[in-house]
């Protein structure tokens, strides 16, 4: 049982990172950025390329990968989402566009690097054993690296001026623009932040169980559920939800099989959607605003 909790905690951190990234993009731009999963893998593959193929050191590869992520995020926002913004498109269409971007990214990676899973350390991970609980080195990594990042992120959003601007845009777009906040810059910023979070999680995962072009999709799905469960406007909620989901996923893997992980996650999503949006039907929204 304790093992389950520890596993949940460490995998929950990864989910939380991706979910925070996704959540901040969604709450600020209202875009359902499914390509998040694509950026997740792209950054990792780029790191892999720099580190193992080009052969510059670990730190430089890391910096390179992060830079690449920033450029990629900005590029996608500029190329795909910005034009759609001008035309007030149906959010479903934006979702499909995002999906299209995801497909392109993933398939380019598959073309270049193949569909198989790549792992970074080939030696079996060292682990610590405390009483009858196993903590692998990678799980420790998750906590040591991931937790501070999450805390930093929180600090950024809640305490800095930039973060407040971001919150302003996500709360009330028109008012934020009236007050002088440059919307486009905030959008770029938010994509950059979100994508960095995702790639961070991706790198941690790659060192752990490896990564293949499609792993982004799975964790993005979980992140989506976490974001909606926790409330797209609430950072804390998203974080709690991520841990809860990680716990549920681990439980379902333990008691059922790993194949049930996704269906269970999405079953929760359905329940949440139906339950939470209950107040929205029956025309409770001001009619004239619909």
């Amino acid at each position, binding site marked *: 049982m304790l093992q389950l909790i520890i596993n949940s905690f460490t995998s929950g951190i990864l989910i939380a990172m991706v979910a925070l990234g996704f959540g901040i993009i969604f709450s600020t731009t209202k875009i359902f950025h499914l390509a998040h999963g694509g950026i997740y893998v792209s950054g990792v593959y780029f790191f892999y390329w720099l580190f193992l193929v080009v052969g510059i050191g670990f730190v430089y590869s890391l910096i390179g990968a992060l830079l690449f992520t920033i450029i990629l995020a900005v590029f996608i926002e500029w190329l795909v989402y910005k034009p759609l913004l001008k035309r007030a498109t149906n959010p479903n269409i934006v979702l499909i566009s995002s999906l299209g971007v995801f*497909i*392109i990214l993933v398939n380019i990676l598959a*073309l270049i690097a193949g569909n198989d899973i790549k792992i970074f350390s080939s030696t079996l991970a060292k682990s610590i054993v405390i009483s009858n609980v196993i903590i692998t080195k990678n799980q420790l990594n998750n906590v040591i690296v991931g937790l501070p990042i999450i805390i930093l992120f929180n600090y950024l959003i809640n305490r800095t001026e930039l973060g407040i601007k971001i919150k302003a845009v996500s709360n009330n777009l028109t008012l934020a623009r009236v007050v002088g906040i440059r919307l486009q810059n905030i959008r770029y910023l938010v994509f950059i932040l979100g994508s960095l979070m995702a790639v961070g999680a991706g790198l941690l995962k790659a060192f752990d169980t490896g990564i293949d072009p499609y792993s982004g999709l799975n964790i993005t799905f979980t992140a989506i559920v976490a974001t909606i469960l926790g409330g797209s406007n609430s950072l804390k909620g998203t974080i709690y939800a991520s841990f809860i989901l990680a716990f549920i996923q681990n439980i379902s893997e333990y008691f059922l099989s790993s194949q*049930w992980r996704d269906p269970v996650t*999405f079953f929760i999503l359905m329940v949440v*959607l139906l339950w939470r949006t209950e107040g929205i039907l029956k025309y409770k929204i001001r009619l004239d605003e619909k």
Partner: protein
Amino acid sequence: MNYLIHILIFLQIYIILAFSLNIKTGYGGMFSLCQAVFYGTGAYVTAILLLNGFNFIFALVIAILINVLFNGIVVFYLAKRLRELYFTLATLAFQIIFYGIIYNWIKLTNGPYGITGIPKPIICNIEFSSPISFLLISTFFVLLTIIFFYFFHKTYLSKMIEATRDDEIWVNSLGKNPNRYKFVSIALSVIFATISGALYASYISYIDPSSFTINESILILTMVLIGGSGNIYGPITGAAIYILLPEFLRFLNFPDHLAANFQMILYALILLLIIRFKPSGLFGKFEFKS
């Protein structure tokens, strides 16, 4: 020659699928990522019934009934309760849950091993076992579909379905119940997807869960988006592009192992271009606005 027939049959199956989603998304305005659920249920139910000795028409009818009663009701409930983006997410959840069920419920569906040896249709004591004879059957159904939708487009009912898509509240204000029209569009969608599923199962003689994943649903949706909705040319075009694209690549002597990925990239690119520059689809009359 056989290969040509093979392509043609597949084209027809996908045309019917495109029409089935068209009535739900194009006319009904409900963006759905769960079309493969209807498709898959149709395939599996038909397969099981055919293997138990029932004839094709009977199996088809029962499959339609089961599909509408189970899946149709679920989606109708989702459509009643959720709007727009949340509806789409819920259909995504439904799709993934469905996949989990057919993958894991080995007693019913044989899980990942799939169902083999599905017999070809026997109608009026004639067995349609050769490809050409199957082509007759599939042509029959595809013509049936096209003619049905051609005439359906002219009825008041289809206009009311479109009206519900445009402004549900106004429909209510005029004294009509939008739920009725939603139900009709969902039911029609299910019925035609079932036909596709039945044809697929019977033709390929082997089905397994991997044909009915979220990827399949996404592809069906992109067919409708690329081809356009609101008339009969759209779905035909969308299906044609999807089916003929790999053939086109093959014609250009593209290396096979790269072809699958490249095809997806090309397809997603087309999708993004259409959304950007011709949002109503190549031949569609309707553009999704917010």
